[in-house]
């Protein structure tokens, strides 16, 4: 009889212990779930804003195309006008390709060896950050950075860009909103933090000139590309 009681009490205690553990876990889980939900609401809001912005841009692009098409239709028979419309488009394509010299407001960043040497990755990261801040044109030591520009370490002291050998200091010019650029670079844990062992200098300028890319077929090549229409 007494023996049976002891067993009963032990079983109760074990059960109680399990319940408490379960309770603790459940409360913890619920808390986590709540914060997760909150986070996903934030993410969804972000996504919504992005979609809206995307649509605004698409509408703007569509409106511009419609305007161009109308202009073109009105110009029917007027070769000069048609030529002008094409020239405008050509100019824009040349800007994106980096085939013209451009001028504008922006930032000049000078990076020099200090405790360590400037690496390929340092320059890649800075250029990437500039692009993320909507830079319209970028050059390193007057070599225009285009889509196919490589950054290659060559030996210990040299870096090759667009097939041209150069060494520190690296002067990176970028045309974009200078304040936005500076803010993006100075961000805590951002790209400048990763350059703390180097000498870095930022200078905002109103009239930055960025040269066009060398267009002799060595930097931009297209001989292996076949255009695909209707895509």
């Amino acid at each position, binding site marked *: 009889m007494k023996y049976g009681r002891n067993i009963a*009490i032990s079983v*109760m205690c074990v059960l*109680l212990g399990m319940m408490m553990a379960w*309770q603790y876990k*459940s409360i913890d889980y*619920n808390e986590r*779930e709540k914060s997760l*939900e909150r986070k*996903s*609401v934030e*993410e969804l809001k972000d*996504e*919504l804003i992005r*979609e809206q912005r*995307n*649509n605004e841009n698409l509408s*703007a692009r*569509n409106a511009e*195309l*419609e305007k161009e*098409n109308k202009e*073109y*239709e009105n110009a029917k028979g007027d*070769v000069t006008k*048609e*030529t002008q419309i*094409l*020239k405008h*488009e*050509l*100019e*824009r*394509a*040349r*800007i*994106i*390709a980096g*085939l013209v*010299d451009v001028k*504008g407001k922006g930032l000049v960043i000078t990076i020099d060896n200090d405790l360590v040497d400037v690496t*390929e990755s340092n320059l*890649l990261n800075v250029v990437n*950050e500039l692009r*993320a801040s909507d830079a*319209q*044109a970028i050059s390193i030591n007057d070599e225009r950075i*285009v*889509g*196919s520009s490589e950054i*290659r370490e060559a030996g210990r002291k040299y870096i090759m860009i667009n097939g041209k050998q150069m060494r520190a200091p690296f002067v990176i010019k970028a*045309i974009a909103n200078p304040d936005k650029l500076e803010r993006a670079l100075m961000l805590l844990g951002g790209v400048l933090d990763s350059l703390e062992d180097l000498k870095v200098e930022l200078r905002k300028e109103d009239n930055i*000139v960025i040269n066009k890319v060398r267009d002799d077929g060595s930097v931009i090549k*297209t*001989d*292996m*590309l076949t*255009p*695909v*229409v209707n*895509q």
Partner: protein
Amino acid sequence: MQQNKNILLGIIFAVLGLVISLQIKSIVYSNKNLKSEMAEEVKKLITEIQKEKEIGKKLSEKVSENERIKEENIKNSITIRKDDNLKNIKEELDLVKMKAGLVSVKGAGVVVSLDDADARITEDASTLILHDRDILRVVNELKKANAQAISINDERITSLTECVCAGPTIMINGKKYTTPFVIKAIGDPNVLYDTVKNSKIAYLLARDMIKISISKVSDITIPKYDSIKIDSLFSGLEVINNEIR
């Protein structure tokens, strides 16, 4: 002794009762809060996003239709008028657009796939994840190997393409992507393959067990640059020494 035991049992049951009621309360509370308010907002947001996406789809269709009309108009003018100047400009425009990444292209090359490593216990969990900087370095290797056109998850790489980490996703041409990442490159397949295969970044990624695979492909299509930023590219920018002006 018998009485003591009874008291003990009584206490145990009381605590048990308390625990059960707490448990029920916690569940009821979380259900009320989560499932009603939050879920309501989530649902609303999802429908709104869906709506915006549909609008976006229609707008994209309109844009490509208008682009087609534009192309046709120009072609018609050239055939009707037989104006050499117009024809030359159009030819140059096509070439420059190809250089700028504004035309979809195809050719032979390589496809590099990257994905996070499988979960495992390590000192530094961030080595399990693929970072924006890893992708940048792989793309740079492809550029070293003279890739003529590159895309990441079908986003064309141009002079203006960024690739930055934004939380758990990576932003490319202003759009967010998550793993896996598929990088396509057109160029000499053997040179591209060997350069990436023997690069330091491929070694480092493989060491951290990030999934990386490279394959030569004879027919790759890379879409044109289609950034949502495309019209903000020209504001405040002045072109100098431009002979076509």
